[in-house]
């Protein structure tokens, strides 16, 4: 046996006490749904984990009514300090149950345990801690004196960071004094349901947080509900458009965090070894299921061959496989549907003339898998350079001058994030200034912090999550 074939180091699932079935979490209790229940499966094995209720329009009515009542009678009467107290409690419970939440997340989503353990769950706790601190300081958030909550927020989140996206939505909403009805994605409802248990454990007043599971129809009913004051959505641009259309003219406030096709720009004076790590982290983190993924690598022509060589060598050391193994770097694709989309777009990439390369990978028999892939010889007109693939697929393009790098980076309907790699500080600042992207990382990629606002330009959406800006999205008097 070679040393690099590390012996399996599976994380134990023993502390995970899952129920065979989960209802909807409405008004502080689990109740049956009136839609047809569905199974949530592990994408690594395709085995069912639990059955989950589906909410129909009547269930959404109940959930929104519970949230309204909780808002009017209880949550809006509490002082900021008391709201903060509950949020701190939730943050601590997340930390206490961190291992369990990480295992559940990896099981349901397919992401490697080292990411759910070291990134997702710690950030979830950090988000609640951060906004807990804001709850009694809203007067100082720069939104004028005594900014008021909006009321009931309807929130729809994606499957790529199930629990983290929940935290991004719920923490600021609650801190600002709103109550919420949240719908997790149908392929990854598990950690939201565990979070419902945490809400119960924290003694949060009934109805302040409601979790409704289901597919697109459930989300549509929530977004369209007339008694919702605020809609927050993270997901695809197509669905975001539909939501914007539905919400238009209703007086509901809206924030959208949609797709991206981020440019990761590597200049010839980059710290090369760290840039390689950053490229890998930019696109293969979370199997590339990241809206701000650095899916377009723009590398200066003079170092193109060297970067690609080094990248290939590095990719050959990535471990693809069991998400629950502590040594796994790249886990399973979240669903058969997403796998199909990645395959299709990759085939189109080949057909359009780009050169495809993947390291040799052995996959488990079942489950949804896709080898880390890089495409070289990609032109800006190729579909793999323009469309969001949302998978472990990197398109490599070149540029000759900083001006060309900026032009190519901005030449996309999206504008969520970008990366710059250079040892020259003045160049980083000058280029960052001209990039139309909500987040620009310099000599790093895919780093998140609750104090830092996150959001997009153009078709990547509007509104900001995180930081003081994230509060404004949930307060009257705030801009969006």
């Amino acid at each position: 046996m070679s040393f690099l074939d590390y012996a399996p180091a599976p994380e134990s699932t023993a502390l995970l006490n899952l129920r065979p079935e989960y209802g909807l979490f409405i008004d502080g209790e689990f109740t049956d749904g009136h839609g047809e229940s569905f199974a949530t499966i592990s994408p690594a094995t395709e085995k069912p984990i639990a059955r989950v209720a589906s909410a129909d329009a009547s269930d959404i009515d109940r959930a929104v009514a519970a949230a309204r009542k909780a808002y009017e009678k209880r949550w809006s009467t509490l002082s900021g300090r008391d709201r903060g107290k509950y949020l701190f409690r939730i943050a601590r419970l997340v930390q206490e149950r961190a291992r369990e939440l990480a295992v559940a997340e990896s099981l349901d989503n397919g992401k490697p345990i080292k990411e759910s353990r070291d990134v997702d769950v710690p950030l979830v706790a950090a988000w609640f801690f951060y906004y807990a601190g804001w709850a009694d300081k809203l007067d100082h958030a720069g939104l004028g004196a005594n900014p008021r909550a909006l009321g009931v927020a309807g929130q729809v989140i994606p499957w790529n960071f199930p629990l983290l996206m929940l935290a991004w939505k719920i923490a600021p909403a609650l801190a600002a004094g709103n109550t919420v009805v949240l719908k997790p994605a149908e392929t990854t409802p598990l950690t939201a349901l565990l979070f419902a248990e945490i809400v119960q454990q924290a003694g949060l007043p009934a109805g302040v947080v409601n979790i409704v599971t289901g597919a697109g129809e459930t989300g549509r009913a929530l977004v369209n509900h007339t008694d919702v004051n605020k809609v927050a959505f993270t997901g695809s641009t197509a669905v975001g458009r539909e939501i914007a259309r539905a919400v238009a003219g209703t007086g509901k406030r809206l924030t959208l965090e949609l797709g991206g096709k981020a440019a990761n720009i590597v200049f010839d004076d980059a710290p090369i070894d760290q840039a390689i790590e950053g490229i890998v982290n930019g696109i293969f983190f979370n199997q590339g299921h990241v809206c701000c993924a650095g899916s377009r690598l723009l590398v200066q022509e003079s170092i193109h061959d060297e970067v690609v060589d080094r990248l290939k060598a590095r990719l050959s050391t990535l471990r693809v496989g069991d998400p629950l193994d502590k040594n796994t770097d790249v886990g399973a694709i979240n669903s058969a549907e997403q796998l199909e989309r990645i395959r299709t777009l990759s085939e189109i990439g080949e057909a359009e003339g780009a050169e495809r390369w993947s390291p040799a990978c052995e996959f488990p028999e079942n489950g949804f898998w896709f080898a880390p892939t890089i495409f070289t010889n990609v032109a800006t007109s190729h579909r793999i350079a323009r469309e969001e693939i949302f998978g472990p697929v990197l398109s490599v393009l070149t540029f000759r001058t900083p001006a060309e790098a900026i032009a190519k980076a901005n030449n996309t309907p999206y504008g969520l994030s970008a990366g710059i790699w250079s040892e020259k500080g003045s160049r980083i600042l000058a280029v960052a200034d001209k990039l139309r992207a909500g987040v620009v990382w310099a000599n790093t990629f895919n780093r998140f912090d609750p104090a830092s606002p996150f959001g997009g330009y153009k078709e990547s959406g509007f509104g900001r999550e995180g930081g003081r800006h994230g509060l404004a999205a949930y307060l009257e008097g705030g801009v969006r």
Partner: protein
Amino acid sequence: MTIDNAVSPAQRALAVLGDDVTESALKRYLEGLPGVDATGLEQRAAALGTRSIKAASKAWALDRIIELIDLTTLEGADTPGKVRSLVAKALVPDATDGSTPRVAAVCVYGDMVPFAVEALGAAHAAGRATEPGDGLVNVAAVATAFPSGRASLAVKLADTADAVAAGADEIDMVIDRGAFLAGRYGTVFDEIVAVKEACRRADGSYAHLKVILETGELNTYDNVRRASWLSILAGGDFIKTSTGKVSPAATLPVTLLMLEVVRDWHRLTGERIGVKPAGGIRSSKDAIKYLVTVAETVGEEWLQPHLFRFGASSLLNDVLLQRQKLRSGHYSGADYVTID
């Protein structure tokens, strides 16, 4: 000083820099190397440190760590008795388990080399190529006015030649950090070339040369990268982090960076250079992180005594305790392994 000193040619430098091996050519070359982003380097090292090495992989790793150790004593208070005791430990690390491999080398001051050679007897590698498991142990000597390196070149060369003549198989030299930090790369280069020459034995073969950068004094990662390249260009067989007398000694990020240089040298020339982190690696857990970093940066073929070493003393006993634990299923304690 602005005049270009023609520095002594060394084969590698000639091959890489061309005929023009001058102070300014060296400077241009070293300062033209890509920079190192400290945060990114440290994050990568930390990520490698989270690998979970279990079961059979762990058992293999523990044995291999022992086979990669330069068991070291570098004290002013060293005596022939202490060195004999160290050698006995090197030959029989764990008296309760005959399957325990021997360490790669014992590392002592130059004047202690004859005692180490004598104590090793037939187990002394004496210039023969060694393999893991062959039971041969090298004698390494620190030289060149270790640890500060503050002496004239003549003294450093005499120090080296003396240790080689006494039977040292390996020489751990220190670079002139003062000259390096002052930008006098040519001086550092010349010294390494000269020391390498002083490693030549009567029969024309050379003692292995490990070049200690003393990364704790170089301070920045950019400096470590430059010093690594410089040492390789000047003919070093190994680049070594530290003397163990300066804090911080070996760290995982510094070792990772040096491994990256060695990997790049191999890409460039096909030649393999060794790396030796020394000082501060005390637990098996830490040592395993180094093995992971080696394997995932330069490849598993580097986990051989002629390409990777640990400079350590207390590490050995922790590895032995872990080995005992794997064998028996329970932890014993410090009194169940011998002090040397």
